[in-house]
């Protein structure tokens, strides 16, 4: 057991560090460090421009999409090298927000399912940040039940072979500045739900595509609704066979779960610093027995996630696939962040209600309180994650399914539900 690099890893880390030292946008470092939960890290300039500039620099020097093959604009590096890179990139990785979906999910799907010519066309500008992708999967009626989607693609009546898409997607991160979208549709409503889906990609500038930002409960707008009205998509932009959309989407979703860092943060370090400064009954809060007990339970979850992440990195470093333990990260972090925010506000007393960027803690626990409910839902709700752990990790049987062998159109749907 050690926390050291192998000599090869150390050499690679030195290279990465040298590049970052020489090239990273240092002038943005102060605001990147101070970034509070759920809001864009960069405020002093156009965040999208800052993101693209840094990505371009990385791409030119071979540091973009490190684990992708070189011929598609990647670095041709190993998974562990990618982890080392992201450790070194540190706060600057927050700049990459606009590319996360494209690099982490859309790119691998294109790589697995598109033809060679399309890959040559699509992947390099995705890697270099010139083109941004979004993922058009979730729907109002879908939610945890992704395969319940209703957006229809029907063959155009003009015999062109094109598809005409109508419907609505939701929770699309970055749709407003995306060039391309990965779109899953229903092409056959009269077969069981998982069998009637087909995957496409399309330009977000195609006529009939409309993006509307969703205002979130915390007042921000990181997500969008995307409406499709008679949108024409060429058959050449189909990924996988007609009816094979569910299998294609699994590639996307599996890649989502494969991205491994050093564990999600629970914001414990921020809470701990606050408790060193704040007072309870005239003493530093950390001296209060009740505060200690709560802090200790947060501390061991934070630390447990950190070292769980390091165990996954260890596996990568040995050329193995990380074990199922990585699946616990968001489940633990989401609930912990919410409890932790409530606890921080409690310590602030009546003033905890004040959400003020000019306050000593810059309103960060208030922002966390208001953002954390989404963490427990997005990218797999707590309930779905417990199902995944129960079924895929522990091998328990699936839930009883009443919708599996029924034609999609016969599955009962909500009455007057908005979603």
């Amino acid at each position, binding site marked *: 057991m050690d926390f050291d690099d192998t000599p090869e890893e150390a050499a690679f880390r030195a290279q990465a560090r040298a590049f970052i030292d020489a090239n990273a946008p240092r002038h943005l470092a102060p605001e990147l460090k101070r970034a509070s939960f759920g809001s864009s890290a960069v405020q002093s300039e156009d965040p999208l421009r800052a993101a693209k500039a840094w990505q371009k620099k990385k791409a030119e020097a071979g540091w973009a999409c490190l684990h992708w093959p070189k011929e598609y604009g990647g670095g041709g590096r190993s998974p562990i090298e990618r982890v080392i890179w992201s450790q070194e990139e540190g706060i600057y990785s927050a700049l990459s927000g606009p590319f996360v979906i494209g690099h982490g999910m859309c790119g691998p799907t294109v790589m697995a399912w598109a033809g060679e010519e399309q890959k040559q066309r699509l992947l390099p500008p995705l890697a270099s940040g010139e083109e941004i992708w979004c993922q058009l999967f*979730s729907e109002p*009626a879908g*939610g*945890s*039940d992704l395969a*319940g989607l209703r957006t229809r693609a029907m063959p155009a009546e003009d015999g062109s072979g094109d598809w005409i898409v109508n419907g609505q997607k*939701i*929770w699309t991160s970055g749709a407003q500045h995306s060039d391309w979208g990965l779109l899953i549709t229903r092409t056959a409503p009269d077969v069981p739900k998982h069998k009637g889906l087909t995957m496409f990609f399309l330009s977000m500038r195609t006529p009939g595509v409309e993006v509307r930002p*969703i*205002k*979130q*409960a*915390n*007042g921000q707008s990181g997500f969008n609704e995307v409406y499709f009205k008679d949108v024409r998509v060429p058959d050449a932009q189909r990924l996988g066979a007609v009816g094979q959309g569910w299998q294609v989407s699994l590639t996307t979703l599996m890649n989502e779960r494969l991205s491994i860092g050093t564990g999600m943060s629970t914001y414990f370090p921020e809470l701990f610093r606050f408790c060193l400064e*704040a*007072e*309870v*009954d*005239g003493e530093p809060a950390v001296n209060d027995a*009740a505060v200690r007990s709560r802090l200790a339970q947060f501390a061991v979850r934070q630390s447990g996630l950190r070292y769980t992440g390091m165990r996954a990195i260890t596996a990568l470093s040995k050329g193995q696939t990380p074990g199922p333990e990585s699946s616990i990260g968001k489940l633990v972090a989401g609930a912990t962040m*919410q409890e932790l925010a*409530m606890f921080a*506000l*409690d*310590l*602030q*007393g*009546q*003033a*905890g*209600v*004040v*959400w*003020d960027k000019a306050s*000593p803690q810059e*309103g960060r626990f*208030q922002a966390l*309180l*208001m953002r954390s*409910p*989404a963490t427990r*839902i997005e990218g797999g*709700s*707590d*309930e779905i994650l*417990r199902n995944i752990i129960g079924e895929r990790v522990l091998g328990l049987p699936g*839930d009883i*399914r*009443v*919708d599996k062998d*029924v034609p999609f159109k016969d*599955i*009962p*749907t*909500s*009455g*007057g*539900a*908005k*979603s």
Partner: protein
Amino acid sequence: MNLDFSEEQKALKDQVRRFLEARCTPSTVRAVLEGPLSFDRALYEGLAELGVLGAAIPEEYGGVGLSHLELCVVAEELGRALAPVPAASSIYLAAEFLLQAGTEAQKRAWLPRLAAGKAVATFAFAEGQGRMTPDKVQAVVADGRLSGVKSPVPDGDAADMAIVLARSGGGSGAGALSLFVVDLAGPGVSRETLSTIDPTRSQARITFDGAPAEPLGGSGDGWHITTQVMDRAAILMAFEQVGGADRALEMARDYALDRMAFGRPIGSFQAIKHMLADMYVSATLARSNCYYAAWALASGAVELPVAAATARVSATTAFQHCAKNNIQVHGGMGFTWAFDCHLFYRRSNALALALGSLSTWESLLIERMSAGNINAAA
């Protein structure tokens, strides 16, 4: 044994609910959330006309002269409807201070206007972050003039009058503190509305710079009276919290019945069903504790301090629990601005801090029980 409200009180409750269903819809709440006003004055005056603001204020002071039980019933409905009105500041707190410690002249000057919703008053207590203790009070009154900064003050931007806890006459500890009535429209007062997690209940920073201040209650009695009134307000606030918890549970239940996933209502999944069952459990425990506290409040029982802390801890826990899981049951839709879940989430977390935080009341509860009143919870 009668741990329930009377038929008349239940009828009042129905009446208030019907009134609020008509006059305080989610868009009423959103108008205050998103708009420039700190509360809905028309709604507040409507409540006054209904007689509910003055429910527990004697008729001689312009009230209806019922008991605090009626006010509990009203508070539950205000909580359920998330009413964006300053009833907590003006009625649960300021009016109680006046009733407990005001001179006849002070009562006559303010209570009729508070009961009529024509004036709003508040209690200026906190001075920045952390648990309030006597030593944290820095505001000071000398020669009838108040100086200092109170923040946050609930409804402080809209209030006409504030009851202010401040030092006077030197000394330290609780005995150095007294209460004062300060006209907020008078000289030496400047105020600023604060950004908060729940703009439907406004908060302000008030800076006093030699503002004229009239004593309320005896000199040096400030902390003692504050404790008494905070207990009474905590019970009313707990009813607001129980009302909110119940409504959040209902919303979640209705959504779980309606929303389909995997071909069945999500409420048929044990993960959701059991989450809702646990919400019901905490809401029920809180309601029962509130009924006990209502009895103590109305009867002036010696158990009042323990009952108040019990209701407050239980109701804070329940409302936070129900509002948080209401979002979870709604999934992604629950995190949109368009759905109402966040209104309850905001309010639940704001009320958890109003009157002092959960950990403060937990500590108070056990301190009071150890001080001898253990039988109350046996």
